[in-house]
């Protein structure tokens, strides 16, 4: 079979797609081998197919995916009774029960003072920020000169009391039960043998 240039131009697309009869393909190959123009047409057509088939050709506009997702979500009907929905509801219930249990356990800790001999605080503003040392028994206002432990934690007074800490008898003296009896601080300190012997790490 002998083919000419016009045959090649008519069949070049099928050639690139691999849809040629084998005998025609052999004949075209023979022609193209000796024809510069047809070789240029064939290779150029192959390049076109290659270039336009590359997914890098079209760039998505910035934010395209987010907008697409938002549009879908706007039109998403509310799901009722799906497995996923029930799982979410169950997880929420577990979380609520767990939180309640933790709160209760914290209340139990609150009653166990770290120092059985210390006086619990009264009318301590619960949101007042205080500092404690992990190994200590009392809580202090920040800057209390009787804090000797370098590693202290800051927290609301309410939390400190829940964890069993008691007020520092120096910086927190106005919140001690004893203050209700108007015992002068120096006397109180002497009575506990604590004057000049206090630290957050006691």
């Amino acid at each position, binding site marked *: 079979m002998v083919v000419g240039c016009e045959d090649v131009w008519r069949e070049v*697309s099928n050639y690139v797609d691999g849809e040629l009869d084998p005998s025609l393909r052999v004949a075209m190959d023979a022609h193209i081998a000796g024809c*510069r123009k047809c070789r240029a047409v064939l290779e*150029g*057509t192959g390049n076109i197919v290659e270039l336009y088939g590359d997914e890098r*050709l079209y760039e998505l506009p910035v934010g395209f995916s987010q907008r697409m997702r938002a549009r879908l979500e706007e039109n998403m009907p509310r799901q009722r009774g799906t497995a996923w929905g029930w799982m979410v509801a169950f997880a929420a219930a577990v979380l609520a029960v767990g939180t309640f249990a933790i709160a209760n356990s914290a209340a139990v800790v609150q009653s166990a003072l770290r120092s059985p001999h210390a006086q619990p605080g009264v009318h301590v503003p619960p949101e007042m920020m205080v500092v404690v040392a992990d190994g200590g028994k009392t809580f202090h206002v920040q800057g209390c000169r009787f804090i000797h432990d370098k590693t202290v934690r800051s927290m609301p007074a309410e939390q400190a009391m829940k964890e069993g800490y008691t007020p520092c008898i120096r910086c927190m003296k106005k919140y001690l039960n004893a203050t209700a009896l108007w015992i002068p601080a120096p006397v109180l300190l002497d009575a506990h043998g604590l004057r000049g012997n206090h630290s957050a790490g006691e």
Partner: protein
Amino acid sequence: MMPARTSSPVHPVENEAEATLIRRIRNGERELFYELVKPYERRVYAATYAILRNEADAEDAAQEAVLKAFKNFRQFREEARFSTWLIQIAVNEARMRRRREHPDVMEPLADQRDEDGSYVPRDFADWREIPSETLERKEVREKLIEALATLGEKYREVFVLRDVQQLSIDETAKALGISIASVKTRLLRARLMLRDLLAPGFGGSWTSRLSFQKGNKPW
């Protein structure tokens, strides 16, 4: 002389992960639909852009197409590929918009010619270099998109479905509602016209500024 390009194989589903997603969505987890669409976002956009030739219109049509696919998901039959089904919806959406918004646009004169008339290439610039890295350059991508936009509608649509979207000849024919013979004729003409438009640039003036990878011909 060279290995031929083969038609893309027709798989019922693209992969196992996609099959699982489809099954879960059918079973009620409709919120997963975006995960199913995400790998094809770019193709959906490319299809609508190639037809509408405007970024904002193309994005809006792409969103609308995905929304229609979501609402009509029950109509999707797994004998077809999901991507093909989605692209067909996108093409239909874009064509419908173009006709609605530009009902008076006439087809370019070239489109009115007899499809059976042979096309004679105008340019024979030697273009043997494979521009494997050239698509990294924005200017090249713009040239390609501009060239495609100059084709008449019926050539552009066939070319986009077959060569940009990689649908088979048969899928392209079904998507456009035309015969396989018409797809082949239009595809040939579209490819040759694009080659004529782009070969001078790739074969000459652009090559001095582009870093082509030599000696690597995948087809």
